[in-house]
């Protein structure tokens, strides 16, 4: 029983982080109809930003976190205006371009940041024990921050004028344009937000785990699985799917073996896409 509760806690904590990782991807697909294969690499950039700002320069963590998000937000704007313009709306071209971007950024990372794996000291050290369940303070804080950002995003999307514009473009870009929505502006904004969220998750991962240029590959795969299982373009779907993935990973690790958890997640994705392609909450 103790093991079960431990698994539950671990799974939910990681699920929140995964949700944060996946939401950016979800947003891009909804608004720009593109899948960003390089999503993991932006997470990586966020992690390195935290490494330099918090780990090397010694900035207080929260400040470095905000600055990381801001940097990636700006980067998102820049990329959209520069590179993605010619392929916007063309899903296949976007897939392929971002595939190349992903390879490029990863290898650029090795060149620029060096080959050695890095780490930062935990900004929230300590053990939290409730009954027999043990977890680190860092993980709890991570989950809380992730939920906070997710809440913030949901507020923007569902309660603000900007959010209405996002949803309009996601539903029908032409109609949205007729309503006076500036598609180009919305696209840039969505990419910027997406990258900021990726950077935020990167910052959190940097403190929890390690930092190396290929660190984005696994989170990217997870994000893809989550977004597809949840339903491309559905935010609530992505959140549910993320928690599901976190729990599957945790319970499979505990009861079957860690080496099976990766395969189990992909099997779940495979089955969902094969038999319910619109995902849990998506539109077909």
């Amino acid at each position, binding site marked *: 029983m*103790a*093991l079960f509760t*431990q*698994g539950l806690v*671990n799974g939910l904590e*990681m699920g929140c982080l995964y949700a944060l990782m996946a939401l950016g991807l979800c947003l891009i697909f909804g608004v720009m109809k593109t899948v960003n294969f390089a999503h993991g690499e932006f997470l990586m950039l966020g992690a390195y930003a935290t490494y330099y700002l918090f780990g090397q320069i010694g900035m207080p963590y929260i400040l470095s976190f905000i600055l990381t998000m801001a940097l990636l937000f700006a980067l998102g704007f820049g990329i959209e205006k520069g590179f993605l313009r010619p392929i916007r709306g063309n899903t296949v071209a976007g897939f392929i371009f971002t595939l190349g971007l992903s390879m490029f950024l990863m*290898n650029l990372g*090795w060149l620029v940041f060096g*080959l*050695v*794996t*890095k*780490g*930062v*000291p*935990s900004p929230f050290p300590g*053990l939290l*024990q409730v009954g027999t369940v*043990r*977890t*680190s303070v*860092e993980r709890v804080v991570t989950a809380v921050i992730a939920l906070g950002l997710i809440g913030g995003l949901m507020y923007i999307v569902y309660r603000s004028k900007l959010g209405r514009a996002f949803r309009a473009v996601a539903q029908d870009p032409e109609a949205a344009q007729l309503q006076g929505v500036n598609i180009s502006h919305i696209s840039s904004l969505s990419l910027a937000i997406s990258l900021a969220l990726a950077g935020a998750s990167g910052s959190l991962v940097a403190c*929890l*785990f*390690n930092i*190396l240029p*290929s*660190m984005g590959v696994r989170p990217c795969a997870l994000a893809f699985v989550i977004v597809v299982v949840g339903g491309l373009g559905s935010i609530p779907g992505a959140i549910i799917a993320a928690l599901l993935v976190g729990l599957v990973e*945790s319970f499979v*690790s*505990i009861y079957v*073996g*860690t*080496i099976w*958890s*990766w395969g189990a997640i992909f099997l779940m994705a495979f089955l969902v896409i094969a038999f319910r392609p619109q995902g849990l909450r998506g539109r077909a």
Partner: protein
Amino acid sequence: MIAILSVGLILASCAPEPTTPTQPTAPTTPAEPTEEEAIIIPWGTASCLSGPYAAWGMEEHYIQEIQVDDINSGGGCWGDILGHEPGFRANGQLYKWELIAYDAKMDPVEGNKVISRLIYEDKCKFIHVFMDQVYLAAKSMLIENKVLTTVQGDSPDSVGPDSPYTFRTLLSNPEINPRVYAPWIKDNLGVQTVAMISEDSEMGRLHCEHYGDQFSDLGIQVLAEEFYETLATDFSAPLAKIIALNPDMIFSPHAPSEEVGLIVKQARELGYEGILFEGVCPATKTLVDLAGWDALEGFYSVNAVSPPFPYPQQQWFYDEYTARHGVDAWSGGLFDRADDPYNLTLAIEKANSLDAEDVAAAWESMTGDELFSFFGPGAYMGGQTIYGNNHILVPRHWVSMITEGKEINVAEIPPPPGL
């Protein structure tokens, strides 16, 4: 049109290109004028210079550079400690090395291309291969061309009678390390129960199996064997299971420091207070960056030597390496991969020939002072009882511990005899 293009491109690849080695080592002019010209022969490396394992590939590259420069210039180790002139001799002719390294990216198809380039274009008769999977894919090509090969990798498939020209000087051997360290653990740490947490890779499983056997034979109870995916970062599930069993020691038989550092960090975070031990050489800086000195207090690792160095060649290597790459780049585990160049060169000199068969026969027969090891005296060529031929260097084994903000040597164990 298209056909022309494709064929043209294929044929264009045939245009002989000037072979530009990545890191050419210029033979340094020694103090006294040399009367004779040394012939420069290439030593090729199928390395890994990009990708997740590039950190080791680059380290290995730096190690080779230092030693090749030293051999060519008759410097601190080759000249002073081993008493050689600059360069090396075979059949009366003086030779010097030129290091050529290409990136095989740990991909066997790429490795094939790289090794065929080294053999057929750069005319290498001596090649060093980083990692077993690249070696295995190119094995038939290397043997067919009689290339004297040194392998960085501890798979039993990479050595043995069907690799007649292949040698290995790595200290990390899944069949040998456990025979040395398991008894040491039993005798010195008073451990009665152990839980193993290992990477799910060939090396991880092999080390785990052999350590498991050794521990059981010695009466140490193995409470659990948990496996995780290579390059995993979240060990909370296996650690939770292990810590619940309360073992005296948590043992990681063979994992890179990016994983071990996180294991240590997460184990301590989850409140584990027992002994943490890794059965492989550490990359200390990475461990500290990930886990912090506090979590690492009392952490044991093996196959590494820390200052103060008991043997002159260790001090020399430390000075050279830190001079070139900084103190932060240093780790005691660098010695583990450093024994190839000198031994290869010594074997050529003993064989008095560049022919792979002669060199292999000579190397096999080298004993005592004919061999060189950064780990200290007493190393011998062994492996007959395990692999079928004596192509492994069996050196001194070392145990180190991290304590009070630094790494110290805890034990120096003579080479296990009769292998």
